[in-house]
């Protein structure tokens, strides 16, 4: 005898089609909030300008390896704007839009990839974690922060992001598992940009969706068009509210496309079909929102030109601050190893001062 003991489904959200036209009349409330939408738009344009500039900085020898975020702006912007100041954000390495929304400065990310630890010493969101390079580890930090918040009965929440490839790591799953077991105020964003360097999403797992990985711990799982900022914002709101109400964690898979090389050290033409890449530009998020704004009569050519000028100035100012920072002296590599440097280190610090020279690029 057999009986069904559990049932699940995964829902997919999308409001705007590729051209920015609503798929139906059933739009979320904020879909007419022009102020919010233009803010979203302004930010996405800014972040893309930031991103392009970063690639230029790297190509011209002014920065180290960089992981561009081109094409994925709607995800981080869509949920980042929902983060309150007192919430905590734990990013993966390709997730500057959400970091910026939460108060990280443009030049901090330049410093980071420029090889300066001060790029992790955020002046804005003091509790946010810096970029995590060891993939998936950040999910457990986020769960730990959410645990602290829950134990202290605070009304805050934590968001964390990860690439779809990263969800193959055990540590991602362990975080999902404890988030479910302990009903943590935590929202997972799986940024499914279809590729993990050269490995396509389809080769990472046998699952039809990455969202369903949350079922392993009984979490609500949502799939969303990550190039439709309305949909991202909408599902994030649902999940954040749930977390804030103390009802636990959610897993959100946002579908998008990596419209760039994996990093500046990568050459995607080695493994990725150019047609697929070109075709994906059709679904990119910025023009989609612009078209929608235009259809609301909330945007025009003139404003576009003004915005372009504005963001370029903002990016240039950040670059200026990045390039003119005084290098750290060599002994800084010891200063923050422990709160107080153990005596045993005296010789090494002396040696470093004698032989170390100063920071270089």
């Amino acid at each position, binding site marked *: 005898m057999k009986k069904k003991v559990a049932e699940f489904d995964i829902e997919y959200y999308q409001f705007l089609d590729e051209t920015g036209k609503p798929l139906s009349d059933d739009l979320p409330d904020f879909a007419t909030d022009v102020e919010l939408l233009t803010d979203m738009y302004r930010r996405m344009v800014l972040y893309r300008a930031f991103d392009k500039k970063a690639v230029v900085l790297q190509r011209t020898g002014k920065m180290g390896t960089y992981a561009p975020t081109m094409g994925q702006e709607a995800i981080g912007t869509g949920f980042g704007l929902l983060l309150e100041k007192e919430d905590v954000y*734990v990013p993966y390495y390709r997730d500057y839009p959400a970091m910026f929304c939460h108060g990280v400065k443009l030049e901090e990310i330049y410093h980071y990839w420029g090889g300066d*630890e*001060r790029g*992790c*010493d*955020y002046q804005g969101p*003091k*509790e946010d*974690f*810096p970029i*995590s390079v*060891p993939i998936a*580890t950040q*999910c*457990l*930090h*986020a*769960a*730990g*922060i*959410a*645990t*602290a*918040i829950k*134990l202290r009965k605070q009304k805050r929440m934590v968001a964390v992001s990860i690439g779809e490839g990263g969800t193959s790591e*055990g*540590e991602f799953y*362990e*975080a999902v*598992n*404890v988030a479910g*077991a302990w009903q943590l105020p935590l929202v997972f964003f799986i940024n499914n940009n279809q590729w993990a360097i050269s490995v396509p999403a389809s080769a990472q797992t046998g699952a039809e969706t990455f969202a369903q990985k949350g079922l392993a711990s009984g979490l609500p799982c949502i799939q969303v068009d990550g190039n439709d900022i309305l949909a991202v914002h909408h599902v994030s709101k649902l999940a954040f509210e749930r977390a804030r109400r103390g009802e636990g964690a959610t897993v959100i898979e946002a579908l998008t496309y990596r419209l760039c090389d994996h990093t500046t050290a990568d050459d995607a033409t080695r493994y990725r079909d150019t047609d697929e890449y070109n075709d994906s530009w059709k679904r990119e998020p910025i023009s989609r929102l612009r078209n929608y704004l235009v259809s609301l009569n909330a945007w025009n050519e003139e404003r576009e030109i003004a915005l372009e000028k504005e963001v370029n100035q903002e990016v240039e100012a950040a670059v200026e601050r990045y390039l003119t920072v005084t290098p750290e002296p060599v002994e*800084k*590599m010891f*200063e*923050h*190893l*422990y*709160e107080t440097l*153990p*005596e*045993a*280190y005296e010789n090494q610090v002396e040696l470093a001062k004698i032989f170390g020279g100063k920071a270089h690029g």
Partner: protein
Amino acid sequence: MAEITLVEAITLALAHEMKQDKDVVVLGEDIGANGGVFRATDGLLETYGPERVLDTPLAEAMIAGLSIGMAAQGMKPVAEFQFEGFIYPAMNQICNHAARIRNRTRGRLSCPAVFRAPWGGGIHAPEHHSDSPEALFAHTPGLRVVIPSSPARAYGLLLASIRDPDPVIFFEPKRIYRLVKQNVEDNGEALPLDRAFVLSEGDDLTLVTWGALVHECSAIVNAYHKQGVNIELIDLATISPIDFDTIAESVAKTGRCVIVQEAPQTCSVGSEIAACLAEQCLTDLEAPVVRVSGYDTVMPFLKLEKSYLPSVDRIKASIDEVLEYA
């Protein structure tokens, strides 16, 4: 003031600090109702409740990762790994994050966590339950590594570890969890984390060890003392950062040094001590340094376990060899 065992001293220190500082929470597998498989957290759940004593799902990377997140929020997690052999899944979190978070954020975030684990061999446990991996953590900058060898030192060093603002690997010699009792006053007094303990003074030879072997070595030192040979016995205890000064001072006096450890020899803490001697104390040395270690093979299943660990005979033979060297 009561006579307590080493494991009871651990519990006492945990309870003391949980009472003093509400940010201290303990977490791990089976540490709640069960009080830990060695009872190190016995009674804490009853006193401090499930919000300060967290039985976790079974996953060590998770335990470490949660601790890092909680610590970044100003909590002071004291995490238990059930045995040292199960700390490997957490190495990514410990080495790539706990040890680095302060440095890589230039002090913005930090990791005031303690990672405890029963450590070492000699209790006839199943495989993977008797290792001594302290060197892996001593090799990792940004961590502290502590191994107490008596109830009093366990109490004082654990208090210090919990109060320390940086991550501490705290290994507890399980073989002597209940071997001896000692009067330990619950006075909240921490011991320094950067000082080895000179357990007996002597001019003839310096004997450095830590963990359970401190007991065999003490007995050996007493035996030699009766024969008029005075051995200076150092319990290293704060393994990393190492207090080499205490060893150097001693060897300046004795000119001879034997190092005794359970861990395999290659790239071990004993190697570090011998290396520092070769670098900094060469002219003091009147005899070759000798390491008495666990062999460079896998800790055997229980039948051969005793043959693996440094035995009293083996230690004595090395001491004699070094003493007799002219």
